[in-house]
């Protein structure tokens, strides 16, 4: 049974209505997306071809610290031999089976980590200021623009931060156990923009 049927996300205790009075920040949770962790060797041509046939993404051309949108899937670079595929809700099992079949006999792994993390979407003209309060990397669009992602700290919590629209719209992938903490921190930090 997926979380969708149980209907409880890691951020269930955060009152998102409170963000409505915050100026220049729109904060929502992208609930119950599928998250697949993919590992394999880039110098293995069979691996790269299997992935490109299955999801239409050339992993060799996906630069470090960037992500790409392909059909319904988002593919994030996590490391030189590690990627994260985010799927729409309840499509992860189908994709996992497709990938595992395509990768049979190839040195690789596909792991469903959907229930371990969730996504917070932050947009608006104050979005960058809010994230900058707890993040040390340079979020200015000349450094961190649309299509970029970074694994870093946000207020000491390990996050995968990505830019959906330069300087204006960000997505934060956060582990389930840190989600509540980060939600409360975001609520607290955005109080200055009320």
């Amino acid at each position, binding site marked *: 049974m997926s979380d969708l049927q149980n209907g409880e996300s890691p951020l269930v205790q955060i009152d998102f209505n409170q963000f409505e009075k915050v100026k220049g920040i729109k904060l929502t949770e992208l609930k119950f997306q599928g998250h697949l962790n993919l590992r394999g060797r880039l110098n293995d041509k069979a691996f790269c071809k299997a992935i490109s046939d299955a999801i239409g993404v050339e992993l060799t051309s996906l630069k*470090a610290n960037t992500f790409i949108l392909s059909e319904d899937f988002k593919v994030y670079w996590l490391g*030189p031999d590690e990627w994260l595929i985010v799927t729409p809700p309840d499509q992860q099992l189908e994709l996992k089976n497709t990938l595992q079949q395509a990768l049979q006999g190839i040195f690789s792994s596909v792991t469903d980590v959907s229930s371990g993390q969730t996504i917070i979407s932050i947009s608006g003209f104050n979005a960058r200021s809010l994230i900058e309060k707890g993040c040390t990397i340079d979020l200015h669009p000349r450094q961190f623009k649309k299509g970029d992602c970074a*694994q870093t700290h946000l207020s000491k919590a390990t996050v995968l931060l990505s830019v959906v629209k330069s300087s204006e719209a960000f997505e934060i992938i956060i582990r389930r156990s840190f989600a509540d903490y980060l939600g409360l921190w975001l609520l607290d930090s955005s109080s200055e923009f009320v």
Partner: protein
Amino acid sequence: MLQIPCPWCGIRDESEFSYGGEAHITRPLNSENLTDEEWADYLFMRKNTRGAFLEQWQHAQGCRRWFNIQRDTVSYKISASYKVGEQPPQGMGNEK
């Protein structure tokens, strides 16, 4: 705080990294023939260099890869950063 250049992710804050000690220590292949002293030397004995030092770091909160840097233990200046398996830039190396 140190600003450490990860070969994959670029310059990031020290708080994202964990330290791995001296670099380029290779495990002896003939461990069954080593004396206790030689084995202890491999396991425990490390240099305490003043000046340029090659050391390992892991980008623990980022891409989770190990890599090596050359850091001056006096000025803390980092002068090189390279991937595991690569040789240090020419002319560099920890003293034997």
